[in-house]
């Protein structure tokens, strides 16, 4: 396994899987190693982590019927 292959683009593409622990082990390790030395990706990962934590704190609420219908209609039109 090369430890130099991961780029910042890979980090941005796989950050959600990383935070969910869903990356394969070798990719998880390479992701971690990249973040250790890359100040930009450190900030990026921290921002995404904070955003996810913030969303998880929001109360669960069902959408209003009109909004729900609009979303369903938009989905149906897109198919």
């Amino acid at each position, binding site marked *: *396994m*090369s*430890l*130099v292959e991961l780029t910042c683009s890979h980090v941005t593409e796989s950050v959600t899987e990383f935070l969910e*622990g869903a990356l394969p*082990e070798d990719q*998880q*390790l390479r992701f*971690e*190693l990249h*973040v*250790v*030395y*890359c*100040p930009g990706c450190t900030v990026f990962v921290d921002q995404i*982590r904070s955003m996810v934590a913030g969303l998880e704190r929001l109360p669960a609420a069902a959408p209003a019927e009109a909004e729900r219908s609009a979303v369903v209609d938009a989905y149906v039109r897109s198919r």
Partner: protein
Amino acid sequence: MIAYKFLERGRIARFSGREWPKSGWLETEGELRECRNGIHACRVEDLSYWLGEELWEVELAGKVIPGKLKLVAERGRLCARVDGWDDVAQAEFARECVRRVAKHASDELREAGVEDDADALGGAPDIDAIAAAAAAAAKAAEDADARVAERLAGYAADAVAWATEYPPSGVAFVAAYAAQARSNHPDVDPFAAERAEQARWLADRLVLSRDGA
């Protein structure tokens, strides 16, 4: 067994965000898995991959499995902070990494026949001199159509910038990347060899135990 752990300021683990207690054990449940589940720490030879603000000596207990570049244990506790890993040592380490990038570039320049600039870069006494010599060497290598040497001289200039502007983990990576970029590095895995040299420097400078106990 005794191992080491880099933490962010306030004893915060970089990836889990967990604060390690000053005293007492951290414990984990379930199957130990690298990067997934368990108390993670590292051996001396792994240190240069995981650089952070605070370095701690930790004790690992229960089941401990060796992983790639890390150890994973059922339990861990902080023993003592390695006070030697302070701002002075971090700046020294960063300068050492710049010097190591310059050495890789100098060796590559010499192999490419750009010997005067190889001597100037290899003999530069400080990072300001390395920055100036690297810029001149990159131009000389370009003129000689020595592309790898030109790139490595560029890395030496990059290393100075990283050492000046960012934590030392950045310039340590640049040094390993520069080793990997060499045309004829004597090691099979130049990246790992460079990281191992960095770890030896850290162990010597910080007087760390190299053997788990």
